């Protein structure tokens, strides 16, 4: 058996393990990946990321994601000046680039939203819902989960803000993994 076959087998095994583990987890290194701008240009994640990056999977039609539009804008406004980079991704198959562009304009997003054709990036991360956030520090995931703990009622846990505050202060994140109810990302079949 030559080394190429062994190499292929190793890659296949690695892919299987990644799938079983549900994508990328806290502590994992984020590899570079490619997104599409709403104007159709290829954009590398590495060109958007910084020392601290927030990657958020969002939607145009999901009521949960839309309930967080204003909160996402506020988080961006508070943390972007502190050097945090933001990458917003739409992986839903039924929401095309034109719809994503219009949605961003309608809601006055100060940030770009990128398309993930074929939900390749959602699969890489194992992202399941919108909204679903990841905080990446020095290339590794340090937080994964919800933006906060209440869609409509009183927010008791500012999960994403708490994670960013901790990372900016160089402190450990109290809750690096959280879950929340949300719309499933609509994948290609």
């Amino acid at each position, binding site marked *: 058996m030559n080394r190429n076959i062994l190499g292929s087998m190793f890659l296949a095994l690695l892919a299987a393990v990644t799938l079983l583990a549900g994508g990328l987890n806290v502590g994992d290194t984020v590899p570079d990946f490619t997104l599409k701008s709403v104007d159709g240009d290829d954009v590398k994640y590495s060109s958007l990321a910084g020392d601290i990056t927030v990657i958020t999977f969002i939607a145009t039609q999901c009521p949960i994601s839309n309930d967080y539009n204003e909160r996402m804008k506020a988080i961006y406004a508070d943390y972007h000046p502190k050097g945090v980079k933001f990458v917003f991704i739409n992986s839903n198959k039924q929401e095309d680039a034109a719809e994503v562009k219009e949605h961003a304009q309608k809601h006055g997003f100060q940030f770009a939203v990128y398309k993930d054709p074929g939900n390749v990036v959602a699969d890489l991360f194992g992202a399941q819902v919108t909204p679903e956030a990841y905080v990446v520090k020095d290339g590794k995931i340090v937080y994964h989960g919800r933006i906060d*703990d209440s869609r409509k009622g009183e927010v008791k846990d500012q999960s994403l803000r708490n994670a960013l505050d901790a990372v900016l202060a160089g402190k450990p994140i109290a809750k690096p993994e959280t879950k929340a*109810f949300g719309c499933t990302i*609509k994948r290609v079949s």
Partner: protein
Amino acid sequence: MRVPAAVFTLILAGSGALAAAAAGPARLEPYDAQRHRQVLAENRGKVVLFDFWATWCAPCRAEMPLLVELDRKLRGRGFRLITVSADEPEEKQQALEFLREHRAPEPAYIKEVEDDDAFINAVNPDWSGALPALFLYDRSGKLVKTWIGETAIAEIEKAVRGLLD
């Protein structure tokens, strides 16, 4: 022929009960991790499908009538559909009206928890909280199948029937 008053009353009472069953759940019972364990224990010996859904979730709304129909068809063979709404408290009435419109079985539940994380983990640690989420348990109370997101009803029915046979 004169119908005795007692018989007439019985007929009335009977039709009332039928009307109540056909109208769907009268109320939504609160649901948390403890109640989940309790419902599982109470339904030991039956094949149980938990449907975690919400009014804001389009695929959840689309599959509800199909699941209710499945419950109606297979209830006599020991199948139970348990619906648990993940709606917020202010959407409770809307959720109840939806269930009543589709004649969903009783009892029906609505999540009332302090901590979504802990609740989701208690139901299934592998679940992200994405909706719709269906969890199928066999008669021994063992989880045998999970469906997250849109799922063909034929696939669900096949799995349920497989456990009933």
